């Protein structure tokens, strides 16, 4: 594997891990892209994707009291909103306050759900 395309590997792996269903995303790859990742444990891939989302959720909870209040008051609605946010907004933030700003911007954008606050 001396000519392994590292950049493509990382891009494809990241795209699968932030997809709503990583296995559906894996299956949708073309053969060359799929060969970059496989063979790979599908359960492990799903678990990694869950943890990527969970870490983002935690960043948001640490950065936004408003999001925390929404989650506390209506966990089902908040969870649905967070899933839509995670699926539609790339994870560009490493720090909680930046994640909070990105979430607030998404909430106030057209078509996004409104928090009760």
């Amino acid at each position, binding site marked *: 594997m001396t000519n392994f395309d590292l950049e493509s590997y*990382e891009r494809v*792996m990241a795209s699968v891990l932030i997809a709503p269903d990583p296995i559906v995303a894996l299956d949708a790859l073309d053969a060359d892209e799929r060969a970059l990742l496989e063979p790979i444990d599908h359960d492990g891939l799903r678990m990694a994707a869950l943890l990527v989302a969970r870490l983002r959720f935690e960043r948001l909870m640490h950065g936004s009291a408003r999001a925390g209040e929404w989650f506390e008051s209506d966990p089902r609605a908040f969870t649905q909103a967070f899933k839509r946010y995670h699926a539609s907004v790339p994870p560009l933030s490493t720090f909680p306050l930046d994640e909070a700003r990105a979430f607030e911007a998404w909430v106030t954008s057209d078509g996004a759900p409104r928090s009760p606050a």
Partner: protein
Amino acid sequence: MIALAFTLQPEERYLELTAPLHELVDVFEICPETTWRSDGAGRLIPNGFHAMFLARATELDKRCIAHGVAFSLGSARPDPARRAQWLERIREDRATFGFEWYTDHLGATEIDGQSLVLPLPLPHVDAAAERVRASLSALQSVVPDVGFENSVFYAQKGNPLDEPDFIASCLSVPRSHLLLDLHNVWMTAANAGFDPERYIERLPLERVIEIHISGGNVSDPAWLPSGRAMRLDSHDTAVHEDVWALAERWIPRCPNLRALTLERMEGTVEEDDVALLREELRRARKLVSA
């Protein structure tokens, strides 16, 4: 002498509850980026925990080591501006905390500007090892002794027992070290179905500067359509007896080991846990004093 270390975490309740334990250790391990925030203008500046951690270390005269998550050692094409920001912040923090060494995680967390935070597994190829070596060299411009932890990978291309050779290749840079996380080895072995001893015996043990021990939970079977439960790197339970056994067996075989660290995650410590953590630190002290 091998130092005993404990993690400081960015949560007031955690710091309050674990405060009586801090005198029992020699060193505090700090995740630098948990003490930062961005100022919105491209600079990383200290958040409130920066001063709290520094006050605790100063008050108790503790040494500090750094263990980050998101420097992204394995990124194929790291963002130069981000790298420069991080190195500047780490330089300032090293001057403040006196970090004796700086480790991060094997893997890539930053890809095309996206921050996944969970380290992505690297393929065991020369190009990936070269990226890790280049990143370690960049870190050495700020902290001379650097390294990485063997990460948990829930899904990995290739044979996990090939990883030790890849790690050795990544660590060919002088003064680059391995942080051997025994819980990570043990739980990855459980998830992937291999013998953790076979993995550890293949590692470059002379490069181990620090060992991590921690506990971890098992995932809810409802999380996966297959109903499978997987071991997690959650740092939220007692250290498993199997991990203690690995520590007892392998600590004497790491000739350049400088610290044994008990890790615990914020949000996982209640009053009832403090006695357990005290006992774990006592047991860990015995291991490094043996």
